[in-house]
Structures are given as structure tokens and as C-alpha cells.
């Protein structure tokens, strides 16, 4: 037997999934062990091995693929627990990192803060000014050297930074993506003056026009690179000692993995790895069940993450935001649209009910946790409504106090609004559902699509209690709650199944029509780079696929539309097809006849994604067919529509088999979540054990 293993290292828990070649999938959970996360990983792996009646070395020896996603780099950036790095940039332009194009004051901040500009602040500088040095050199927009690199002064700056104790250097010079000569020479100087220091070059990490985002990306990469290098090195050594014979793979924001030895060089690409695990899991599930368009919703206690799959492919983006900085990293697009089960319900100064955007933090959590929280949350409302079991969550391991939930809702919402406690709870539940639908609709519509063409996938602890309602309000076709083999570790399951993926990009802004020779030369370079990196993955890749993209825009538009370019020779015709496709994508997003070619088109950035498929393809196992009617395991009064509670069937998810039908109103209890089937919904269990709900 051989295994495919996925490990998802979160801030609190480490989830692991092992899929055997016999089709069985098992999962395990262990507490994460920061700062060295390998303890939690070994613990989770040991639990996995036990379920196969193997020792850990036996499991690892038979492992054909080992893929791992970590939140540690992102946490380090967000919490600003990063080592000091030295920053080198072109003379006269150091302050780009501090001016932040002004947008650093508000980028990525929640909606309610945006209308309060006088209280907004820029984040702490990415690099303190004393560790930022200006280098005398200048390259112009054509890539020509205007002022040669002053090596004497550069060496002095490097030595000063070295003596100031920096552990890494980030170099981002103006126009370095056009001509990387000075950046490369600076790296050589660093290798001489500060041997062994980690160095990140903007021309390698992010060769894209616009110096602020490129510099921010390069600095962040240098801040997490050394830590990632040490961590992955230690982990891989340990796993190899324990018997692992294949390279350790690390998940990237792009939804594909790279080997642990390759990852640290462009560390920033791994920063969203945990966020994307859920989308990749949804992609696996979508492909296996033949769904082409999916809205993947992953709702936890404090976060609500959304990813889209369109025509069988995840929607991608070319940048993200971390600590109010724009970061260039090819990613699966994951929108954080609001708060999860911990969203606070409150009455504003105008006497109106509000839910979110603030959320109860993990500690003290919702009022019903009994850890001192006094403000009512969506979770409290769900408990009062009877949706959540009074014996608590996680099979009773987290007890809940209905009394505290009722008290919080009555005091903070019910009384001020003149509503009974149950009525107030129902209103909170309904407002949360409607807001979620609004925010989801925005995500779907802004990407140019119609929600009625989509299935909603709902996972995470706090999603399934609401998903039927928000999916119906959204007008989605159906909602799917994954309850089969990977129910407990959906994100880890996604990681386990990830393909290898490497990307290369470079800006070469030019007006259209593009010159085929110039474009072909760029893609030749990028594809050579991608192929050689794929070859270095040390995996037997079953098939390789190279995809080309060009970021195009009209005139002076700020945002570009990433448009595919066909493989094969780059010709005037293929580039014209690419422009036609751009206009089609543009109009899908903005409406018919909104394109306006006469305004002029520009190509800005060229990109190649290389995907390598490993031979081990992951599938969820069948759950077995129902041979009898599904019996309710309990009944309890539940209020789902604001009227009086009615006795409602409660089902145990472990008993679900393919073909079982559940008509609403009903509740399905899972260890890690609770599913609501409203009166207007019909549920059916599919072959993999997923609960599929439809409406009307």
C-alpha cells in the first residue's frame, strides 16, 4: 500500500490526512506547537499511522507524496515577529516604502474603518529607516543604465547593515525587472561582505512594474525566507530520518506545491498556503463530483473565507494584501468577507440591529462559551434557536451555556429593540444570513458571474448552520456540505491532492498590438525558467502543462485583466486572439459593449504557470449505499424562521449513506459542525457522503 499525506499546520491545530492506495482516507488532529511546528506535525502523523495500524516510520516509508501547508510565515508577518532585514534601493527613492502610495493608510482595512479617515494609521514601517539604505545607481524605463552602480558606497552600506545585525537583505531597485544587472551585482557584493546572508532580489521575487508593491513583496520575502529555510530544512531532515523517501512538498498561494528545498528562495509564494488549502480541497471535490462552478465558503470562528471555481478552474489573482501592503504573489483568490460564528450582534446608536463586522476573539469567545464574553454572537443566537446542541460542540467537549447566550442576547439586543429573546436570536441569524449573501454576491458578481450558475460548498465549523439560507438568498443552484471521508480535514485533504506548480513572470509594459518577436522572447525565457524549476522538483511528474498569461488593460486603467495566451508559436494572430479574449473577459466582468478598444490597450506583465501532476491522484472514497431509511437520532425544538420553535429531527452524520434523503426542517450533527436543513430545502446524501441541498 502507498499513501498520500497532506498536513495543514494552522495557528491552533495541525490537521493531517492520509489517503491509502486502497481508497481509504483517514484524518487526525493535534495541537500546533509553535514556534517549532514539527512537534505537532509528528504528533498528527503518529495518530494517522495508528489508524492504519502502522508505526510512523512504516507509514512514512510507504508514503509516495507528502504535501504540507503552513501558516507560520503569514503569522510571522501579521504579528510582525520577523527578524531585522536590511533594505537597499535606488538613491532618491527610499521613501517609496514609507509613502506607501498613500494607500497604505487604508488598504485591506474593513469597510467600517474606511469612512473614518482621521483615525486611520499607516502600519509600522516594513523596515525601520535606519536599516534602509540608498544605493547610487539608476536604470531607466528602457532598462538603460543612467548611473552606474557605486560599488564602494554600496559595500559600505552593506557592511553597516551587516554590523547592525540584519539577518537578510532585500534589494529592490527602480526598473530592476527591466535590467537586473545592478541587483545581481549587489547580491555578489553581499555574498562577499556578509557571506551566508539570505538575499532577496526584486528582479527574482517579483519582476513586475510598480516599485512599491515590488519592494514590499521583496522585503516580506526576505523577512520570512531565512525562517522558512531553517524550518523546512529541519522538518525535512526529521521526516527523512523517520523514513520519508520522497521530497517534502510545500503548498503555495497559487494552489500548487513546490519542494521544500525550492520554496525558501521565493518564500513569499508560500504565504497563503493554508488559506488556499480549502479552495484546493473544494476543487478536488468539484472535479470528482463533476461540478464546474463552485463558491467555496470556509467559515471559522473569526474568519469567513471565500474562493471561486469557474469552469472547473479556481479563480486566481496576481496580488494580495498583508498588513496594509500590496504583495505581488500569484494566488488562488481568497476573499475574507467578514466575520464567522463569532460575529458580534449589537444595537447601534440609531437603535438598529447590526451583526459584525467586529467579532468576538477566540478568547473569551461567544457568551455561551462561559469564558467571560458578555456580548452576543451569531453562535449564541444559534444556540438559543436550538440549532446548536445544548450539550455543546465537539461531541460535548466544548460545553455551551444556553443561559449565558440568552442573557447576552436579551440584554444587548432583545431589550433595546423591544424583541423577545427568541425573536432577537432569529433576527440575528437572519441578518447574518442576508449579509453573507450580499457579500458573496459581491464576490461572484464582481468576478463577472451569475450566482445561479454556482454550487455553494460549505465547510469550516460555522458555515453549515447558515449555508442553506445564504445559498438560497444568493440564488445559488445548490449547496453541498462535505460530510464524507475528508469532512474533518478538508483543507489538509486539499493539500494532499495538490499538484506541483511553479510560476514565473516579468513586466514588459507595451502598447498593443504587441510585437510577436518581443513577446515570444519573453515567453521563451519564462518557459525555460519554469521547465528547469519543474525539473528540479525531484518528483516523477506524470504530465506537465505550461500555461501562458498576459495582464492586459485599456489605456490608463489601474487594474489589469489576466488573459490566457495559447501555447505554440507566438504570432500576430495568436496575440490578436489574446486581445479578443481580453475583451470577452472584460465585458463579462463589466457588461456588454463596455470594452473600448479605441482607448488603446496595453500589455503589462507576462506570466507562465507550470503545473506538474504527480502519479498519485487523490479521490474521495464512496461512503456506501443506504440500505434502510435514515432514522433521526433525536428531536429537539428548533426555531428557524422566527416563529415558534418546532420539534425538529436531528441526524447523526455518521449514519449517512448514499441515497439518504433529509427533508427540512432538520439538523445534522457532525463532530466539528452543525448543518441546518431549513423547511424550504431538500437534502440528499451523495455517493461520497456529502449532503447536497436544493431549494424550491
Amino acid at each position, binding site marked *: 500500500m502507498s499513501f498520500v499525506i497532506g498536513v495543514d499546520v494552522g495557528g491552533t491545530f495541525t490537521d493531517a490526512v492520509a489517503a491509502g492506495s486502497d481508497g481509504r482516507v483517514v484524518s487526525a488532529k493535534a495541537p500546533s506547537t509553535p514556534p517549532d511546528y514539527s512537534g505537532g506535525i509528528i504528533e498528527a502523523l503518529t495518530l494517522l499511522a495508528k489508524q492504519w495500524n502502522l508505526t510512523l516510520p512504516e507509514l512514512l516509508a510507504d508514503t509516495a507524496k507528502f504535501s504540507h501547508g503552513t501558516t507560520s510565515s503569514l503569522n510571522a508577518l501579521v504579528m510582525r515577529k520577523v527578524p531585522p532585514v536590511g533594505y537597499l534601493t535606488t538613491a532618491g*527613492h527610499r521613501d517609496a516604502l514609507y509613502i506607501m*502610495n498613500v494607500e497604505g493608510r487604508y488598504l485591506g482595512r474593513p469597510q467600517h474603518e474606511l469612512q473614518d479617515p*482621521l483615525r486611520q494609521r499607516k502600519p509600522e514601517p516594513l523596515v525601520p529607516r535606519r536599516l534602509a539604505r540608498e544605493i547610487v545607481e539608476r536604470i531607466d524605463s528602457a532598462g538603460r543604465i543612467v548611473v552606474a552602480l557605486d560599488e564602494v558606497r554600496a559595500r559600505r552600506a552593506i557592511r553597516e547593515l551587516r554590523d547592525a545585525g540584519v539577518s537578510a537583505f532585500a534589494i529592490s531597485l527602480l*526598473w530592476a525587472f527591466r535590467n537586473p544587472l545592478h541587483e545581481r551585482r549587489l547580491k555578489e557584493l553581499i555574498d562577499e561582505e556578509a557571506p551566508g546572508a539570505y538575499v532577496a532580489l526584486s528582479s527574482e521575487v517579483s519582476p513586475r512594474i510598480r516599485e512599491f508593491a515590488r519592494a514590499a513583496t521583496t522585503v516580506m520575502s526576505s523577512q520570512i525566507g531565512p525562517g522558512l529555510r531553517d524550518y523546512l530544512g529541519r522538518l525535512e531532515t526529521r521526516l527523512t530520518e523517520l523514513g520519508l523517501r520522497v521530497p517534502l512538498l510545500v503548498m503555495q498561494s497559487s494552489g500548487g506545491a513546490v519542494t521544500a528545498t525550492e520554496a525558501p528562495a521565493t518564500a513569499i509564494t508560500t504565504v497563503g498556503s493554508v488559506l488556499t488549502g480549502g479552495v484546493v480541497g473544494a476543487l478536488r471535490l468539484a472535479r470528482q463530483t463533476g461540478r464546474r462552478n463552485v463558491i467555496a465558503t470556509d467559515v471559522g470562528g473569526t474568519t469567513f473565507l471565500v474562493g471561486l471555481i469557474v469552469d472547473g478552474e479556481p479563480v486566481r489573482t496576481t496580488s494580495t494584501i498583508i498588513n496594509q501592503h500590496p504583495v505581488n504573489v500569484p494566488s488562488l483568490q481568497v476573499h475574507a468577507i467578514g466575520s464567522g460564528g463569532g460575529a458580534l450582534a449589537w444595537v447601534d*446608536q440609531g437603535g438598529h440591529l447590526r451583526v459584525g463586522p467586529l467579532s468576538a476573539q477566540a478568547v473569551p469567545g461567544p457568551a455561551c462559551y462561559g469564558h467571560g464574553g458578555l456580548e452576543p454572537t451569531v453562535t449564541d443566537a444559534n444556540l438559543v434557536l436550538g440549532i446548536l446542541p445544548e450539550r455543546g460542540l465537539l461531541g460535548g467537549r466544548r460545553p455551551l451555556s444556553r443561559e449565558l447566550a440568552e442573557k447576552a442576547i436579551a440584554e444587548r439586543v432583545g431589550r433595546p*429593540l423591544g424583541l423577545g429573546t427568541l425573536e432577537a436570536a432569529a433576527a440575528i441569524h437572519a441578518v447574518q444570513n442576508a449579509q453573507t449573501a450580499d457579500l458573496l454576491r459581491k464576490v461572484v458578481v464582481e468576478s463577472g458571474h451569475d450566482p445561479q450558475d454556482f454550487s455553494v460548498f460549505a465547510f469550516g465549523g460555522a458555515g453549515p448552520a447558515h449555508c442553506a439560507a445564504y445559498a438560497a438568498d444568493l440564488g445559488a443552484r445548490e449547496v453541498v456540505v462535505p460530510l464524507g471521508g475528508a469532512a474533518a480535514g478538508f483543507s489538509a485533504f486539499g493539500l494532499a491532492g495538490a499538484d506541483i506548480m511553479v510560476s514565473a513572470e516579468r513586466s514588459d509594459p507595451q502598447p498593443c498590438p504587441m510585437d510577436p518577436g518581443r513577446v515570444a522572447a519573453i515567453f521563451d525565457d519564462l518557459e525555460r525558467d519554469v521547465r528547469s524549476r519543474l525539473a528540479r522538483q525531484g518528483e516523477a511528474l506524470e504530465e506537465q502543462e505550461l500555461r501562458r498569461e498576459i495582464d492586459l488593460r485599456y*489605456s490608463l486603467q489601474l487594474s489589469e485583466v489576466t488573459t490566457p495566451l495559447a501555447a505554440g508559436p507566438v504570432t500576430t494572430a495568436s496575440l490578436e486572439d489574446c486581445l479578443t479574449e481580453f475583451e470577452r473577459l472584460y465585458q463579462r466582468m463589466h*457588461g456588454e459593449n463596455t470594452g473600448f478598444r479605441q*482607448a488603446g490597450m496595453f500589455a503589462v506583465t507576462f506570466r507562465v504557470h507550470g503545473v506538474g501532476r504527480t502519479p498519485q491522484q487523490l479521490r474521495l472514497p464512496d461512503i456506501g449505499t443506504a440500505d434502510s431509511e435514515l432514522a433521526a437520532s433525536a428531536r429537539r425544538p428548533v426555531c428557524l424562521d422566527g416563529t415558534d420553535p418546532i420539534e425538529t429531527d436531528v441526524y447523526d452524520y455518521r449514519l449517512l449513506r448514499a441515497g439518504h434523503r433529509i427533508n427540512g426542517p432538520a439538523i445534522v450533527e457532525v463532530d466539528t459542525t452543525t448543518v441546518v436543513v431549513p423547511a424550504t430545502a431538500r437534502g440528499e446524501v451523495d455517493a461520497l457522503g456529502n449532503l447536497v441541498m436544493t431549494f424550491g
Partner: protein
Amino acid sequence: MFLHVPGSESFASQTPDHDGLRTEIGEKVGLHTVTDEQVAALDPLTYEVIRHRLWSITDDMGSTLRRMSGSHMVTEANDFDFTINDEVGREAQVGLYNTMLVGAIDMAIDWILRNRADNPGIADGDMFLCNDPWVGGGLHQNDVLITQPIFVGDELFGWTAAVCHEPDLGGPNPGSGSTSADDVFGESLPTPPVRVVHGFEIQRDVADVWVRRSRVPHIVGLDLRAKVGANLTGRRRLLDTIEKYGADTVKAVMRRMMDDAEKRLRDKLHAVPDGTWSAEGYQDQAKLGDTGTHRISVTMSKANDHLTFDFTGTDPQTGVINCTFGGLRGAIMMAVLPTLASDIPWSAGGIMRCFDIVSEPGTINNATFPAAISRAPVGPAWLTGTLITQCLSAMLGTAEEPPGPVNAACCGTWEGLSVAGLDERDGAGTPFLYSAMDPMAGGFGAAPDADGVDTGGLLCIPMGRSPDVEMTEYLYPVLSLWRKELPDSGGPGRHRGGVSAGLALTPHGTSAQMRIGFAASGKATSQNPGLSGGYPGSTGYDGVVRGTRLEQLLAAGRLPTELDQLGGDLDPGGCFDVKFIGPGDVVYLQWQGGGGYGDPLLRVPESVAEDVLNGHVTPQAASAIYGVVLDDDGEADLGATAELRERLRAERVGRDRTTRKPESRPETQIGKPLDDNLDRLPDDTIACRHCATALGSAGEPLTVELIEAPPAAAGPHIGTNPELYIDAQVGFRQHVCPGCGVALRSTVGPLSASSVLHAVGAQNAG
């Protein structure tokens, strides 16, 4: 002198009279309305669900507009906005971008209803375009409104609207601004509302007339589609919502949103003491060649839950520094939204009910046709907004728990730089024109508990954005020698104003002459005052440097990053000026920082040391303005600092030593704080909060020391040569507590202005 144009009155909108409108057009267009009972009957659940949806729809319109626009001012600078309005044009929800536009959009819809209902009619599938600032919809001709009526059955349910700044709409100068026009006929022509979309189709004849006027018709055409697209997005989503919940319910929610915003704003006003506050500021030069300085005055009274803004005392309209009544309302919204409505939904239709305006037509911030108004938003409206922000901050500062941010003024104008020439990089030579967007990075003003944000932006466009240098160099034949934050440009204070930045460009990839246009007031007098004794932020300063050694320097491997490294002579630009430069010459531009809060001699010395370390304050200013002595390691020497500060305070009151120390107030003498320095005692005595010296009585001028000195005394960030720009004598004025020497008010302005300091009842806001 402006000649009156008979017939122009019919285009002059005033504050919309909604009841009058209903009577006037009720027969021509069926208006969808709901009763008070329907509004009252809304349940909390339905209200919140629909309110959130309307917000989400508005937001969608903005995203559509921003993504689709091809205009630099929209995509890079976020100079646009959008609204959802009820049947008579009241704004139920507005966007978060250019907040001045909010004050003009409802006026245009009101005008359309009164003037277009019977001919050509207002029907489903129509959209109207307008760029006539007297009608409304924008502040100057570059602000172009497209608004769409939304029908439910036969009844007009409401409107959506989208406005963005177009790069050029004709007129004698590229960019459509003018620094020398005698009147609006020397600028771009205003277009009153025309039906550009009919039956959901862009009317080709109207669209052609529209784009024909522009030097960049393609971009104007693209933006036309962007705004049509944004309106269609709004319409589709709004009708979906109406279909689901019913028109009456949605309208009731819109009504209650406005009622709610009004009520919450009134509650806030109730919570602060009544009073009167005044402020005045200046536009240096009215146009090219003018050497006057032109006053805007505002006196704000707060009684119970209502505000009155009285602009009596504002100078007559003149030159190119005027704005229409829509600009005046926009200025008020620019100030009110972030200070009083930061935590209130921006249902502007309700917020606007909380104030009245007293203003004489024919003045620079309420100009009548045919005054030149192309600089309305960046000149008179902006300054008016800044002055109102000062008054509101001073008012909020008198509350024990201010229900909104108390904040010194932010960067007070747009430091306009336009560059035109021939781009020879493609070999052929292509004419180019651009406006530098870098001055978006103005400094924010300081607050009682925080420094202003360095290069934080512009208050009137809270989500503005400055471009990357690489984008500028890619698009235009220039090389950016530097773009950096400027030390000392943040107004000194107990909390420092945010610093601004400056840039230097040289032609690169062109051998032809480049035309450099400068346009910004505020080079002699300060438009970014401090509060509570805090100093103003930096004045603007621009110019061109000719005869530089740049070519030799670059060839020798040197890259100048300061003006004095360039060699050559700096030819300073006037407030409104045109210069020409050639290869090897340099254009230099620096814009305004934010005002300071409180006396800089009270700033924590360690914060000053940190500012010096970070290059935000020079060692000279640390010593001269902040009174902080740094040791060899750059740490504040606390003993020496205390001595120096005592000496500086004594100098202020003209003695060897002060009679009282700033921390010498007896614990028993505590009144209600009026600002950072003044207390009002129970017997209405106004006393220094620091040393308890009695300074006078509420309602009467205070008895304080007054220092008058040349502007340079305010610090190295203030222009030292006001005579380059204006005739009036400019000085640094400081009102000082005679007891302890703490600064109560610090201004840079014409010495002809009144020097009387009031604390209560016409308190000087800054």
C-alpha cells in the same frame, strides 16, 4: 469684474426644496413615495437586511466605475464618487471616494426633475449627463455626472448617480484648467443635463457632441461607458432588491437610513456645548499675474442640534479661484463626513438636514455665472472645507468626550503640476500631457492623542492614491531624481502634523522644450493651520532649476538627491505660473504637510529625538521649534531640554524667565477643557490649563501676549519669501499665555487679519 449674463439664473441651483419640487412636478412624473407610517412600521430585521444590501449595491457601483475607467484621476487618484438617491434626489447612500461631490449630486437631480420632466421627459432607460457646476453634480467642469432614473411601474422610484473627473474636456488649455481665464468662457464649457442614454442605448449624437470637445476623446468615451456601466449595475441590483422586498419596503428603508443618519448626527451635536467658532483662510493670487490674497471666512454656530455656516466676510468672486454653491455644499460635506459622521452611515440626504448655509452670492465660494470655476475643488472649496474642519474640531474639542475626531488641518490644497511636451522615446515624437498625481501624498493633521499621518493623503479624497514612480516614467519622458518625505514639513506641535513630500523630475527621452504648469495657492499664507497652539504645516514651494550640472553629475556616477546638489538657479513658480525647461533642467515640487496640535514645546522630548532619527524633523528645528537638546547619540537630554524650553517660553513673553511653569496649575483649579491649553472655570473665567493664569472671561477677547515675527520664525517649513507671491505683509503670529509662555494659537497669514483671540463665543478655530 463679471458681467451679468441674463438667462444664466435658470441654471443656478440652490439647496433643493423637496416639498416645492413635489408640488411643481407631481403631475408630470409619478413619484414613488411612502408614508411615515410605513417607515415607522419597518421591523429591525428587514431594515438591517435591506440597508446592508443598499450599501452593497453602492459599493458595487464604485468597483465597476473604478475598474472600467480609463482616467488617471479615477484609477490612480480615486477622484470620483457615486450615490443611490430617492425619487427627489436625496442621497440614501454615498460612496467613500471624493466626498465633496456628495454636496452637489442631489442639486443636479433636483434640477433635472424641474427642467427635464416634460421635455425631453424622464423615462425608464434614460440617463442624463451633466458637467455644469451651477446646476450641480460636480464642483468644476471636469467632474462629469451621469445619473439614471429608476422606475417601478409608472412611478419614479429613485436615482443612481456616478461622477468622475475627466482628464480633459476642452477649453484653451490641456486638462481644461485655466490659470488666466477672465471668466468661464475662458475655460471648458459647462454642459447642463443632456439625455445621453435613451431606451438603454447611448445616444450616438449626444455622445459624439460630448467627446468631440476633448483632447482625449477616447478616454472620455471610455469613462462615459464606465459611468453608464456603474449606473446599470446599480439599477439591476436595486430592481432585484425591489422585486424581492417590494418597492415600498425598500423606499421605507431608504427614508429611515436618512432619518437615522440625521438623528444620530443631531444626537452628537446635542452632546457638545453650544457655541460659535470662526476661521479664515486665503487664496494667494487669484490668477496668473495677480498679487492679491483673497479671504474666505466662516463663522459656525452650533445651537442645540443644528449647525449654521455663515460665510459673511468672504471676498467677492475674482480670477480663477471661485466655486459655485455646489462647491460650497461640497466643502461642508468634505468636513462633516469624516469629523461628525465617521461612525454614522453616509446617508448624506439625512446629514444635510442638520445644517443651514448663510452665504452671499457673488463671493469666491458662492460664485455666480460667468465666474471662472475650473479650480473650484482644489482652491476655494477645499479651503472652505479645511476651515470648517477647524471649526468642527474646535467645537468637538470643547466636549468632555468628543463624539468625533478632533484634528488639525490636513494638507490644504492640490499642488498642481502639469507637464507637456514631446515624447521622443518611440522615435517618432508623440505629444504628451500629464498632471502629476504625486501630491496626493499630503500630510494629515495632528490630533490630541496622535501625530498626523505622514504622507497620509488628502482629506477630501480619503481613499486617494499616489502613483508609482515607475508608472510615471513608463508613460512619460521624465526621470524622477527623487521623491521623498520632507523633514519639518509636518506642522510642529505637542503632536506633530504629518509630513508631506517633494519630487524632482528632469526630461528624459525628449530633446524638446517641456511646458511646466504650476497651480496651487498657499505658498505665502498657510492653508493647513494647527490647532491649540500647534503650528501650520509646510507651505507649498515649486520651481524649475536651469543651468544645472546634472549631465556631468550623472556621467560621473553621481545621483543628486537634494536641490543644492544640482547646481544652477532655482526659478520659483508663482501660485499660477507657466515655465519652460529643456534637457538637463529640473522641475521641483513640494506640497503641504498637516497642521500640528498643541504647543511644540510640550512635545515629549523622546518623540522629537525619534523624529530626528527618522528624518521627520531636522536637528535645527528640534532645537529652535521644539526646544529639544539632543546628545551625541541623538537621545534627548532632558535636563538641557527643560532649560532650553524655559528660555524659549520666557522669550515668547519677552522676559528673562516666565512667572509660572506650564505644570504649575494647582489641582483645585480645574474647569472644563476648551482645548489643549484653555479651561473654562465655573465662574466663566478662562484660564491657562497649564499654569492657571486667568486670561479673561468667556465671550470677551483674551488678554494674552501676542508675538509677531517674519514667517520664517514659524520654522524652516514655511516659505520665507511671501513677497514672491503677494503684496500683503505676511507674518507668523503667536498668542501666548502671559504666565507660562505656552503657545495658545500659532498662525501664518496676512498681518492685516484680526489679531484678537477669543476662547468662547466666536472662538478662533485656527
